[in-house]
């Protein structure tokens, strides 16, 4: 009986019964392709609500029914050929194939790749917290009073212009004659507490009142891998700021 959905039967009835086909192969196939049971049959059971591992459970149910759970070699010890053939036949008879229900399939698919991604990123996490060399440089354009330096938690007020490597201005709060007139007020925020990109937090603590400086900030201390697409900052962008610290509170 040919299956109307899912993978084709790899073995014919004769092939199944022949000695040449080891039990292990059949078990492997069954474990890989055991299907999701038809939803309606198990809807009654799932009344407790959407279950995230429903697919997983139902796959295992089929395998459990036929005592196919566990390592292949162990299963091979306990199951005889007849039982395996019966399970194989029933698989195609009830057409319980993996992946016939799209939604569950998508959920299942999502899980392994996430773990892969996490493994890939495993190298990075501690770096953010570790102290390393500063990822910015500062060159002073205009000296400040060299006496008033902001402390962590102080509110600072600054004028700034931000540019990308290619010179594009992505942001500024300085009044220009452009169409969008900005408010004639410097930007105020609490410095040193993580409200701004790290490059700014670190740099401003080294500036004195009245100082104007050119900052070059590496992406790690700016917007990193993600960038800020709607803010015109691409991923891994080095940022160039001209900042003038006008007041400290």
């Amino acid at each position: 009986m040919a299956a109307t959905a899912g993978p084709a039967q790899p073995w014919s009835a004769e092939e199944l019964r022949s000695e040449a086909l080891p039990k292990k192969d059949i078990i492997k196939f069954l474990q890989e392709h055991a299907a999701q049971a038809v939803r309606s049959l198990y809807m009654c059971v799932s009344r407790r609500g959407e279950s995230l591992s429903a697919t997983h459970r139902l796959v295992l149910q089929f395998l459990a029914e036929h005592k196919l759970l566990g390592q292949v070699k162990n299963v091979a010890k306990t199951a005889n050929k007849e039982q395996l053939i019966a399970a194989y036949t029933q698989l195609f008879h009830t057409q319980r194939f993996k992946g016939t229900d799209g939604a569950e399939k998508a959920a299942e698919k999502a899980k392994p790749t996430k773990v892969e991604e996490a493994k890939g990123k495993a190298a990075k996490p501690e770096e953010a917290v570790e102290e390393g060399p500063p990822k910015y440089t500062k060159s002073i354009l205009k000296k400040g009073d060299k006496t008033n330096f902001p402390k962590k938690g102080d509110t600072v007020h600054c004028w700034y212009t931000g540019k990308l490597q290619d010179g594009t201005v992505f942001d500024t709060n300085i009044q220009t004659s452009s169409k969008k007139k900005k408010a004639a007020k410097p930007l105020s925020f609490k410095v040193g507490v993580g409200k701004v990109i790290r490059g700014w937090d670190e740099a401003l603590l080294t500036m004195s009142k009245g100082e104007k400086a050119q900052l070059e900030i590496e992406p790690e201390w700016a917007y990193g891998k993600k960038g800020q697409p709607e803010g015109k900052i691409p991923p891994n962008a080095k940022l160039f700021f001209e900042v003038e610290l006008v007041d400290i509170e």
Partner: protein
Amino acid sequence: MPEEQNQTIMAVDELQAIIQRCQILEEADFKGEDFNLFQVAGQKCLEDGYAAQLLEVIQNEKNKLIIKNMGWNLICPLVRCILMYKQEDDKREHCLKILHQLAQLCNPKELFLGLLEQIEQTSAEQVCQTVMLLLQPLQTVLLKLQNKKAYSVGLSLAMIMNQLTPLPVPYTKQQIQEDKLGLCQCCNAVVDFAKPFVNEVVKNMEKSSEYNDMELKEELLKFCMKSLKYPLLTAQLEQFEGIEEHPFRHFAIEIINILWDIRELIPLVFLHRKGKSPHWENQEFADIERKNSTDSLACLSYLMFVQHFGIDCFPMVFSPSYLLQCNMTHIEVLLKRTEESLLSKGLDLFESCLLRMEDNSLLHQYLEFRDFINVPQDLVKVMTLCPIEHLRKKSLNILQLFIDKFDAEGKYTLFRCLLKTSNHAGVEGYIIKNIKDQIHLSLTKACDNVWFTGHHLISLLDLVLLLPEGAETDLLQNSDRIMASLNLLRYLVIKDSESDNQTGVWTTLAKIEQNFLKPLHVGLNMSKAHYEAEIKNKKENRREAHSSNTICSVTVSGEKMPAMTTEMQLQVLHSALFTFDLIESVLARVEELIEVKIKAVMDENS
């Protein structure tokens, strides 16, 4: 024929009569009676179709004074007629001209009241048409009020928005294109109406800050806040295929532009609920104002950070973590609601903030903020209770995103919190799987992760490797969680050799057996026995099963579910047994593995 002619001539005659009488009077001598007669005559002309003649009268220079004082009384019949006449009708043209003239000639204060009254009295079906009709004269009249206009502008906008608020907001593409009640068109007409007032505020801000201008600015701000709540919070703001000019997106952009022009946009984005409002001394009023503004502010953040309206006005120096922190209040507000339009905006806002961040970059200290603990719990409520499937799925994805962004200690704390508070086996199972993934990362990395190994992990495992109600735990209800726990234990036993014991599982084995494995055995035996007995019962009583003394029935979506046949009931019971078998087989496997490992160690040592 002649009689009719007499009738109609009478209307015009009456009008002429009162006009002539008043022409010779001084303005101060106009009496109430004169006003009445004028109104009645004017109304009759309109109703009888003699708008042209009325227009002539009004356009006549000699009647200027009369019209100035008495004209506003004609608004009501005038609007009625305009709405009644067809587009092509000449009479409608005349009426529109009369309206225009009245706006020029009448006392602005009185005409203003007349117009507003008209808007207030219109029915829901006609309100949009009426408003759109009267916006032009209203604007003319308000501009005439010069420096005293702020209060009246505010009143107009408030009145109009009040009248629009009861109307349903078109949501689907079809509804928007149809715009049955005219709301989409009307909203955009209202922002156009407001433009000259915005320009005035801008001009005055550039000169100096006068008290007068603050008032007008305040009124415009109130209008924007109101618009953010209605219709924008409810509206579907995603770009539709096939609609080039999405009316609500256009409206949203205009509102943002106004806020930017009056210099309130960025301050509003950073406004925190907790801030004390300086306007009210009475705490109750302050609370009401705060409550009303939370919805508007949440909508504003959505517009800026999800739809990117006005984002180029936003300073590009803030850290992604800080932006998330700022938005958590708004996300919480939206996630606590049940309407699809609000929930989906909350989820979108949350997602967009998280996507800006790199994994493992969110410091655990952020969990000290109350909303960082509340929001994931709200997410859990959405994913388990919301009737809308795509929102449930989305909230689950976002929870995973949220988890991924935290550093190790943050993940640890969050897992503990959710295990304790979610009260849902599926969610618990999901968290337990996350824990397993973190342990895996810790064991395979070169550097130690103190949070998912050693004594921290043991403390966490105490929450995971147990049966909530001991042997009496409902195994079916908790099967997701139990399977996840068993899988975790199996992983630990396989992966962490006894000699290493990085995870500490070998040290706590006795406790695990006592709190988890032994009660699980007992529970399984009890449950299986119980269900097997039920099955036996059902099979024996199969013949008597068709009696229809149902104790209760189940209704889904208005349809009563058919009573389960014995066959169906048996299937369910068998399914339960399968689940128990499943749990048991994994349990057996785990115990087998433990035994093998312990035996190996004992052999080594002997």
